[in-house]
Structures are given as structure tokens and as C-alpha cells.
């Protein structure tokens, strides 16, 4: 537990290769609010030094000589739960792995191949113990983003023909298809076709969705639309 009124990041860096540590530190310690309090090349040594150095943030490599970085991170968090840990991974990782890291208490995962400003950003965003997930990390397995804009209900209803609107209203009143057919003087099959078209046009999969939609429409604009 640390008292750090200046809110500077007290950084401890654990990486196997000295040269990588030097490169990283060269860029990082130029930042005014980062104080380097310790560094190490192994997991066991890191654990033994942490309490003496009392860092606020630990940047640790995933693959260490003696242990894996995740195990050392878990041990370090057991010692000091408020320690912010950023894990440096060798290559891209799956979503599952990313979830596992975050569930283990890692605050951010940064790839060693990423530019230094990504690490700086992770350091900055995690300084008060918040989780920071980089968009690039998340989108490693890209999904297809879509934007669905909820149009006004009336506007949506205009997609339907007059007869379809009429059928939709009656369905919303929970009237069975056979009864609708009798009331409108058409066949059962015709009403069934109308019902299918209504669902397709409004992008609904199930009847309750349509009923809910019509209910809301009733609240919103039923009297004005004067459809019944």
C-alpha cells in the first residue's frame, strides 16, 4: 500500500534481455512523471525486490527465463493488490488469452512489437488502477461492426403496405390468423404470407417482437396515425 501524493508512476521493469530493458527505459524515463524504482531479469528476483522498491506499476515480460510473467504477476498481486501490472507479450494473442490475463488482474496487455507510445498510453491510463484494453488488441480477431439506427416507429411502419399494416395491427391484438382471414375476407394462406412479410420487412424474428413494436407504436402515435 503506497502513499504517492505526487501521483508519479513508480516503475519496476522486468525483462530478460538487458538490451530491451535499456531501449524501453530510454524512451520511458524521459517522461517527467515516471520514476524508475527497480529492474530485474528474472521472476524470482522481481518478487524478492518488489516490497523493498514499492513500485506502483510493474511492466513484466510474459516469457521469463525462470517463470512465466503471468505467474509472477499473480504472486506480485498477492503481495500487493494495488500494484498495476502491464504484461508485455511477444506476439498477438487471442481474445480468450486476453480475457485470461485481465481476469488474473493484469491491467493492460501490450505487444513488444507495438510502438512505445502504445506502452506510454497504457501506463498513463492504468496509473490509477483502471483496466486499459487497447482497440488494436481487442480487434485482433476482427468482427464486422454494424450500425443500426432505430428509425421512428412510424417511419418503420411505412415500410409496410396498407394491408400489411392492418394485419400487423390485428396480430398485435393477439387475433388468431384464421380469425383475421375471416374478418378481412381473404384466405388463411394470404394472411400467413402477410405476416411473414411484415416480420421480414421490420427485421423481426419472432411474433412477440412485432407485438411489442405495435404496443409502443400505440403509445407513441396510434391516435395520430388513425390506422384502426
Amino acid at each position, binding site marked *: *500500500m503506497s502513499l504517492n501524493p505526487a501521483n508519479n508512476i513508480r516503475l519496476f521493469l522486468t525483462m530478460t534481455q538487458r538490451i530491451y530493458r535499456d531501449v524501453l527505459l530510454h524512451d520511458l524515463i524521459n517522461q517527467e512523471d515516471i520514476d524508475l524504482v527497480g529492474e530485474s531479469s528474472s521472476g524470482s528476483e522481481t518478487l524478492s525486490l518488489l516490497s523493498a522498491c514499492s513500485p506502483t506499476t510493474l511492466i513484466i515480460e510474459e516469457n521469463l527465463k525462470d517463470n512465466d510473467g503471468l*505467474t509472477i504477476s499473480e504472486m506480485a498481486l*498477492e503481495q500487493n493488490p*494495488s500494484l498495476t501490472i502491464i504484461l508485455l507479450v511477444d506476439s498477438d494473442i487471442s481474445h480468450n488469452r486476453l480475457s485470461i490475463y485481465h481476469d488474473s488482474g493484469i491491467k493492460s496487455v501490450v505487444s513488444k512489437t507495438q510502438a512505445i507510445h502504445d506502452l506510454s498510453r497504457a501506463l498513463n491510463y492504468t496509473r490509477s*488502477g483502471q483496466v486499459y484494453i*487497447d482497440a488494436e488488441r481487442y480487434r485482433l480477431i476482427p*468482427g464486422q461492426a*454494424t450500425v*443500426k439506427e432505430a428509425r*421512428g416507429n412510424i417511419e418503420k411502419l411505412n415500410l409496410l403496405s396498407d394491408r400489411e399494416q392492418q394485419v400487423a395491427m390485428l396480430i398485435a391484438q393477439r387475433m388468431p390468423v384464421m380469425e383475421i382471414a375471416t374478418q378481412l375476407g381473404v384466405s388463411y394462406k394470404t394472411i400467413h404470407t402477410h405476416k411473414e412479410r411484415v416480420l421480414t420487412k421490420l427485421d423481426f424474428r419472432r411474433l412477440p417482437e412485432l407485438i411489442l413494436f405495435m404496443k409502443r407504436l400505440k403509445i407513441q402515435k396510434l391516435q395520430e396515425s388513425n390506422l384502426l
Partner: protein
Amino acid sequence: MNSKNELPLVLYRFDQPSARDEFIHSFGNDFELLLCESDIEAQAELEKYGQKISAVLVEQDTNYSSLLELSKALDPHRMCILIHNNIGLNEVVSLLEQGAIDKCFAKPYDCHVIRSEIYAAHMKVQPRFQAGTRESRVDTRYHALIVDDEPLATHYLKKQLDKLNCPCEVIVADDAVEALALFRQYRDSLALVISDQRMPGMLGNQLLTEILNHNPNIIRILTSAYEEVDVALNAVNEGQIFRYIRKPWNAEKICSCIETALAEFLSKKGQMVEQQSLLDKQFQQIVLNREIALFECLGNEVDAYAGKGSLQYFFDSLMDVQTLPPTLSSLRVSEESSLERELVSVFSHAVLTKLTKASKQAEFTKANLLRFYEILSELVQGTVTQFITSNEDPVGAEILTSLQQLLESSGLGFGALELAHKNGVVMIKTKIDKGISTFKHIFSALTRLTPQMIEQQSSTLMLVLVVRHLGGNIVIKGGKQEFLISISLPSMGSQNNPLC
């Protein structure tokens, strides 16, 4: 658990088309967006997509809609974010009281932070369990800690709260240093912290964030005499505060707030204990399955070489070594990856390879027992640092190899051993302060399979097997993340034993 390959579905409620366009520009590639211009539309979408919606964002200039409250009512775990232009402290206090917001960002917002928050919500990232506090039971009353640098005010408030039969025992601290000391002292019974914002040294919101990071269950309440919206919002976003109370204090209001906070604390604690007990149960089953699978792969060969019960002895000894308790992540790895299968096959392969090699080696004779003892003595004393083995060496060489691998796995050398012989019995043991470090073993909650762990524990098993094969005795004493070894190699009788 939701599919991790899907982009989060986000419902965005806006007033101005320009805000919507900016939002699409910022997040169109990151999330599946549901854009709604009215609460009715948004409500319909909430009901349509239900728990598939990971987060609800509301961006309104004035008259904050009841959508966030509705969203929380439908699914309390769904992330609710308010984006505002110029929010007042009254609104923040009121939204907190309704429990309607998780985060609140001012415009222009930082896209990186919002993205990260929504991804984390979608991945259901949860605060890590604190092993030290999760099993603690409190038979006495819970404590409420009030932190303020005006001792007169806090002590007066404490008196008033005591008079009002406050459900918690009230303790007070004059600053963050004292508060953190009390937090440590009352670790098991502290239910909530009420902290003033402006104090010398650490500020109130920093103190609450620090407490959140140590124990997310403790309810955090910020109080201030100043109209500091930014501070309140930081406390909401970073310290995830439960309430914001304005000064001057009203003892009755604070007492009622403590009652609500205590109920929230007990509910969170109950959920956590339940979740941890479920985790423990599931983990026990995983360990049992591992044990059975390893027995199936190794049981026959191991028992044939070292006698019945050898494998069981090793498993039991290893399970006595305390490592970190199971977590959601370790359970997820066991359930969703091939780790369990790989663990059994990789460990069995490593042991069987070593066992085949050891089976081919010659038994101890009078001459090579003496040689073994000499080499080991030199290694322990440090007069030599290396030894050379070959397939023709007796099984003593296998003991040396296994010991060396074991010591190296813990960053130790042969100097960590004590060596003695008495009546022809060779005694080898690890010094009391030189235990073999074992952060994870094959029956631990694992998040990853490492060659170092497989090497260390296959060497330990080989040591057990060879010693038992020779008719000797080996004791593995498990401790906290380490174990000690004590070996006694058999006496060969006084007539042919060179050490007698």
C-alpha cells in the same frame, strides 16, 4: 460466457444528429452500434436485445433520461455511461443515488478510455479476489471508517451516529496515512469508508481508489464541502464510489447512507463468497480429473519401477505445497483450452523419458556408492561445480541429475544441501532456509503450462522414484510456495558398505 470474438453490442442514445455522427466516426469500427433518438426506441432495443447489449451510452445536453436507470433495472451488470456537456454536481449526486451510472465522461471525450471501458465490460473483466479477505468471517459488528482532517467534526459525527444506533461501529482517521493503517487493522471487518476530498497528503478520491484496488468490496463514499464536479466525476470513474455526500454533514442522512452501504457491502460479499465456493468446487473436480488422467498414463510404469504407492506419495506431497488459489482465469483456461490434455501428455512424456533412462542404469555397487558420496560431497562443499554422467553410470547419477535440476529451478546450487552419513545411511536434505520455490505445480490452478514447471516437477518425481527404487526413503515437506526434501539412501549392510 459470451463469445470473445464478437464485437460488443452498444446502445447509444443521442439528442443531436451531430453527436450521433461524431459517435459513429469514433466507434463505428469498434462496436456493433444501436442508435436511438428517443427513450421509447431505446427501451424497445433494450427489450429486444436484452443481455446481448454490453453497454448503454447516453449523450444528452439536459434532462438526463431515465434510460440509464431503466437499463440498470433490467440488467444491473450492464455498463452504463453518461456523456455530458456540462453536468452539475446535483445531477451526479442524484445519478449515484439512483445507482444509474458506472462512468461519466465530459465532452470532448477520450475515445480510448470509452473503448477500453466497453471492451472490459464486454469481456466481463472482474476485480480480482483478495485471497486474504475472502474467507474471513466476522462475528462482531462491521466497521465504518470516516476520514477527515477536522477531528472535531468527525468525533462529533461519530457521537451522533452512535446515538442514532448506526448499524456499523464507527472509527475515525484524521488523514489518509491513518486511514490506510486502520484499513489494514480492520481488514476483515471494514465495510465502508467515507472520506473527505480535501486533506493534506493524499486526497480523498486517491484514498478511495487505493482502497478499491486493495479490496473492491469495501463501499466507498466521498464527501466534500466544495462544489467540485470534476473531483466527483474522477471519483466515479476511478474509485467507483457509491455515493457523494455534501457537507455540512447531516448525521441522520449519513446514518441512513451507512445502512444502505452496509446492505450493498453484505450483498457483494455474499456474492463473492458464493462465487469463490463455486470456483473451489469446480477446481477440486479439475484436480481430481488431472490425478486420474496422470495415474492412467504413469501408474503402471512408475509402480513397476519404484513399488506401489510411489506415484500416490508424490501426488499427495505436491498437493501439500500451497500455491495461489483458483481464479476465474485459471478455471477458464482449464475449461476452454487444451491445457488439461497437454499437461497430462507433456508431464507423462517427460517422466517416462527419464524413467526409461533410469531403468537402463546399473544398480549401486560397493564402489560406485562410495564414488557417488564423494562426488556429492565435493558438489555440496563447492570444490567441484559440475559432474558428468553417462548412460553407463549407476542410478546414483540420476539422483545427482534430478537434484541439480531441482535446485536450479529455484535458483539454488548444491550448496543448499546438507549431507551426512550415519551407520552406512546417506542423508541428503535441503537446508531449512533453502526450500525449492514452487509458485505453481501440476495440481495448482494453472493459467499456462511452462517448461520450467514440467522440468522441476518431473525431476522431483524422478528423485522420489529412484530413491524408492533403491529402497531408500524420501520425505517431501510442502510449505507456502516451496517444499523441502529429505532423502536417506539405504544402508547396504556393514559388511559391504564402504561408508560404514
